């Protein structure tokens, strides 16, 4: 009898433990279920593709940012780095027939590899600067990335407002080859899948290889888990941190290029709050702020779930300001669950 009561207690504890650990997934799942019940049309292939399409560029950004969170750091400059890289990309890929283009001296369409490389170089340079501040100067990632965020925003504003027309209007009217890179589709099993979704899955695969099959990936988890132990074990902490920041920069550069093509208009506000989306997607996906914990499939799930929630609230015409509050609560809830896991381990 006593054994049965004890077993019952253990089972109850296990259930409550399970519910608390995966509380966020349950709640987000329930919210989606409620939305589907209210609006059964929500569960359509078009909406699913739209969610994946919107999640794709943010997913690539989250993949870059996730490495920094695994290192027990973060990146507040992500959105503004994206804004700057996207602005430069947009100014180069404007249609040569557009009279108010940023560079009137460009009279022939530029090969698309040029803006892509420029975007990657800009984002990587800023991210490497962040990495230098964290790895060499031992500054906290919050401070360095906050500083570079403001610097990148300032440069973006100067760049965008420096148009020949002398106005701050958004950079638009792009070369069709550029927009087709993202908005073009491929027919897979009778379904038109936008290219950008494929890029996201490709980027996830590459990041999975980097994280799990390379020395840098293994060292990243070692440094994130316990920096002192990693240093004593012979891991070059500085090199590892710099490596992760550079990879993040490359991801931001690619993300900026794709985002410019996706939204087809770049202004000074492009990239605003993207860092919050990326960080919250990572935390929802199980990347721990305490460092050394996380995996790529988790990030993919986190990004898609977060986008699905955003999309569903927008679909139901929920007040836009309330959507910010909901997002904020989701982030705090995700971090609380993460802290709880940390305390359990401690």
């Amino acid at each position, binding site marked *: 009898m006593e054994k049965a009561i004890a077993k019952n207690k253990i089972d109850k504890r296990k259930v409550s433990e399970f519910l*608390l650990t995966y509380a966020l997934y349950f*709640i987000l799942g329930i919210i989606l279920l409620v939305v589907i019940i209210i609006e059964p049309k929500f569960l359509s292939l078009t909406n699913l593709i739209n969610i994946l399409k919107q999640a794709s560029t943010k997913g690539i950004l989250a993949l870059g940012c996730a490495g920094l969170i695994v290192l027990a750091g973060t990146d507040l400059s992500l959105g503004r780095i994206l804004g700057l890289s996207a602005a430069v990309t947009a100014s180069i890929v404007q249609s040569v027939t557009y009279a108010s283009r940023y560079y009137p001296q460009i009279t022939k369409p530029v090969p698309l590899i040029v803006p892509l490389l420029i975007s990657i170089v800009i984002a990587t340079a800023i991210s490497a600067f962040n990495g230098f501040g964290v790895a060499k100067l031992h500054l906290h990632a919050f401070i360095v990335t906050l500083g570079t965020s403001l610097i990148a925003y300032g440069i973006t504003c100067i760049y965008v407002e420096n148009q020949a027309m002398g106005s701050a209007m958004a950079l638009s009217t792009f070369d069709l080859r550029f927009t087709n890179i993202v908005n073009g589709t491929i027919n897979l099993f009778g379904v038109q899948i936008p290219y950008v979704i494929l890029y996201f899955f490709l980027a996830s695969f590459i990041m999975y290889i980097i994280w799990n099959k390379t020395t840098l990936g293994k060292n990243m988890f070692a440094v994130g888990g316990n920096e*002192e132990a990693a240093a004593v074990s012979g891991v070059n902490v500085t090199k590892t941190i710099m490596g992760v920041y550079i990879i993040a920069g490359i991801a931001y550069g690619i993300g900026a290029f794709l985002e410019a093509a996706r939204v087809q208009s770049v202004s000074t506000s492009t990239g605003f709050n993207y860092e919050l989306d990326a960080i919250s997607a990572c935390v929802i996906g199980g990347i721990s*702020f305490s460092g050394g914990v996380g995996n790529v499939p988790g990030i993919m799930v986190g990004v898609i779930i977060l986008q699905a929630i955003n999309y569903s609230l927008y679909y139901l015409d*929920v007040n836009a300001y309330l959507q910010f509050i909901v997002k904020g609560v989701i982030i705090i809830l995700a971090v*609380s669950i993460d*802290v709880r896991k940390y305390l359990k381990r401690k």
Partner: protein
Amino acid sequence: MTKDLQRPNDELTETVPNEDPAALTLEEREALLVKKEADLSKKESEIEASKVNLRFRYKLYDRVNVSVKTMNIVIIVLVIVLVLLVAYGIYDARN
């Protein structure tokens, strides 16, 4: 091992006497001791400096000092808040 054998003789003759205190004079031993102590204190200060650097880069949760029970309550409260917010949002949108 091969590298050691290939080292020039003068290099070996230079290092061997220093490593054997018995072959040194008292003054040389004292000088060697002072040098070693200086090296040791230098290394110790380097280790301390690196420890300070590592400690400075503290982790985000290192200062979290609450019980699991408290966090459980926080999570439950947040879940309720989230559900109520979404419910209100949907209700507001539909009315």
